[in-house]
């Protein structure tokens, strides 16, 4: 029973969205399949193309839907605004907005699948169109169907049915049809986008992914003109009136004399632009906002070098305000005009500057640290006129904004994933300084999981400072923090730790709270929290590696029950 209430809180909205999306796709596929497979105006089209007509048009409808939806999760400003507008909505609804990239990928997979079905069905259609010209007509074995197909193909002028007007090679016919060559361009762009979006390429060679993904411009550009030649054709209503399809299809020799005047065909109106125009406009607005943000001036106040290759940049931008745990995109024109990289803000909203801690782990970050003068050996400071220009886009909303609405919060950060919590803990302290405003948040359990000693320093300093402040204001029970050192220790370290066992302060961090060794026992921790805070909603916030995320998600579901509900929130870009 406890699992069910946990599951409901954490999983239901996500699965609901998934179900609705899947349902829409299935509905469109089935509806348009039967539309093209049964309606009388497509009778003669089906004579030429058989079931391949419906099999090509059904995925086309799904493609319309998914090409519309795939752009929306990437409009981060739109999502931020939506999230802010939804502050009155229950938390479980807003949690769904965290999964925007997953949804983008899901729509992309569906686009790939539907493109393949659409393409393979149209392979048949092209050959159906061209093979009419290859059937010998005057032999005794020519069937009624072949004669009928030939008659249909002969219809010329604007009333034609068969868009292939002469005997051509099938592959050549593809390039003769507007739908054909635009389709080739669209599919190849899609193919490029898919192959460069594989996780390995994204993580190892981000630029390849980033630049190639901009092929979506080509994709959408040719998508809206894909149907412009109206090559899917059906009989006009007027023609259906005066040409009895049931009789005349059996007697093609009578055409064009009454009772079988030549049927008249017209093309279907292109529909795709109606589906995708709004998201395209929204996305263009999104990029315009990014460009405007690019032109706004950012002052770099301070650059601080921390141990273990972490650089802190403190900056100020007029009119910029961020909530707790939000992130920004940073761009440095000196390095690259097109690359914007996401970083979590480590400053609290109450401070008069905003800061990010950047870990130097790739080409762009190393180049940035070099440009900021932070790669040298000594504590050299670049004069402000030598500082490179940077641009900041954001802030963008993430789950951490909600943390103050929970009475109890469990915050877990692994490695560099602790950065959003720097902002949070600082803000908690600032809010506590304000005696007028009563905080709903009464208790924070903070867990920092670190693989090795070195990663401590900058955050450790901040924690020590915070610890001091809390003791001074008598609030030392507000934040309970636990640091776990997971990777191991050498013999010398073990000895040092043992010797200092009884000291008041931890020998590694200098904090009163002692460091733990090994991995945390989450079952124990969650159980203890559930027992200490019965009948409360506990927010679980995590930022870090996926494996730990699954574990915490599982624990949240497992230990919810008997009034205690653990709401799981994952941070991601």
């Amino acid at each position: 029973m406890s699992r069910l209430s946990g599951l409901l809180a954490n999983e239901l909205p996500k699965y609901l969205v998934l179900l609705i999306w899947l349902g829409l796709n299935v509905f469109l596929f089935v509806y348009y399949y039967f539309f093209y497979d049964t309606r009388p105006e497509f009778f003669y089209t089906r004579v030429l193309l058989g079931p391949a007509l419906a099999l090509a048009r059904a995925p086309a409808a799904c493609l319309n839907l998914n090409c519309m939806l795939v752009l929306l999760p990437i409009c981060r400003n739109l999502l931020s605004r939506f999230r802010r507008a939804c502050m009155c909505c229950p938390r479980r609804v807003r949690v769904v907005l965290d999964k925007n990239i997953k949804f983008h990928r899901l729509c992309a997979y569906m686009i790939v699948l539907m493109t393949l079905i659409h393409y393979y069905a149209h392979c048949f259609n092209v050959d159906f169109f061209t093979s009419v010209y290859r059937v010998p007509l005057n032999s005794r074995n020519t069937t009624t169907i072949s004669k009928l197909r030939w008659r249909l193909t002969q219809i010329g002028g604007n009333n034609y049915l068969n868009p292939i007007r002469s005997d051509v090679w099938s592959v050549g016919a593809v390039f003769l049809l507007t739908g054909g060559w635009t389709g080739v361009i669209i599919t190849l762009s899609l193919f490029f986008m898919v192959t460069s979006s594989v996780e390995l390429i994204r993580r190892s060679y981000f630029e390849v992914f980033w630049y190639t993904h901009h092929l979506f411009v080509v994709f959408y550009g040719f998508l809206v003109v894909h149907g412009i030649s109206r090559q899917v054709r059906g009989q006009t209503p007027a023609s259906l009136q005066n040409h009895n399809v049931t009789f005349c299809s059996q007697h093609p020799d009578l055409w064009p004399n009454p009772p079988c005047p030549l049927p008249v065909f017209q093309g279907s109106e292109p529909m795709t632009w109606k589906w995708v125009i709004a998201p395209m406009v929204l996305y263009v607005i999104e990029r315009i906002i990014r460009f405007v943000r690019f032109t706004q001036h950012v002052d770099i106040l301070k650059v601080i070098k921390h141990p273990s290759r972490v650089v802190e940049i403190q900056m100020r931008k007029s009119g910029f305000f961020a909530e707790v745990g939000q992130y920004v995109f940073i761009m440095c024109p000196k390095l690259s005009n097109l690359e914007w990289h996401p970083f979590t803000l480590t400053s609290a909203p109450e401070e008069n500057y905003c800061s990010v801690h950047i870990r130097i782990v790739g080409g762009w970050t190393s180049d940035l640290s070099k440009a900021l003068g932070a790669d040298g050996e000594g504590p050299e400071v670049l004069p402000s006129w030598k500082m490179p220009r940077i641009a900041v886009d954001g802030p963008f909303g993430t789950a951490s904004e909600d943390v103050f609405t929970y009475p109890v919060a469990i915050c877990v950060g692994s490695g560099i994933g602790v950065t959003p919590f720097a902002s949070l803990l600082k803000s908690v302290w600032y809010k506590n300084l304000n005696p007028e405003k009563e905080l709903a948040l009464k208790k924070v359990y903070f867990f920092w999981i670190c693989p090795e000693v070195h990663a401590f320093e900058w955050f450790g300093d901040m924690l020590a400072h915070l610890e001091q402040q809390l003791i001074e204001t008598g609030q030392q029970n507000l934040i309970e923090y636990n640091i776990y050192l997971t990777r191991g220790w050498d013999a010398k370290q073990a000895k040092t730790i043992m010797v200092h066992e009884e000291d008041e302060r931890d020998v590694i961090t200098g904090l009163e709270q002692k460091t733990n060794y090994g991995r945390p026992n989450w079952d124990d921790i969650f159980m203890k929290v559930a027992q200490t805070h019965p009948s409360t909603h506990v927010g679980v916030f995590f930022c870090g590696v996926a494996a730990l995320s699954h574990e915490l998600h599982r624990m949240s579901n497992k230990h919810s029950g008997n009034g205690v509900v653990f709401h799981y929130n994952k941070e991601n870009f």
Partner: protein
Amino acid sequence: MPSQPVKRSIQWGIWGNETALLGAYVLTIGGVIGIVGGVTQNFLFWLPIGIYGLIFGILMSFLEYPRGKKSKGNTVTRWHQSCFSSMVSKLPVVSNYYYRAFIYFVVCLPTLIIVPTFLGSACVMIGCGIYFGAAAHGESWSPVVPRSQPQRTGGNVSEPPAQPPPRLPQHTGARYAT
């Protein structure tokens, strides 16, 4: 004048591999479609080219499935690629990307004549272009050797603990006797 950013080496062969593999999959399915259309509708050349596309699509997927070793850092291998990797590394001329690009290109040419296999071979040919660029960049394929355990150098850092950590278990109050 903005200074040129330091050019990190991008290993194009990895992307070429993804492209060629996906192209091979599409070619294989195209081959199947060709066979189906050739048998049921007797479209011109669908059956022979369909069979050809199916066979070479499968061969190319086998060849492309094992990911090559990345020059820098850890290579994430594909699921169960080790058996493919050992087979492929025994073949001649697999490590040279020039040969790979050329052979794939020539193999794909016949499949361009029918529509179902056209897309798959167009994709593989793009992969050939990328491989050609990778070869010009001096890259080559080498098999990923499975990492021997344990990764840590002996001596300084200890293994994952076989004995209790240097802190008292939190439940007991016993004093640690030095």
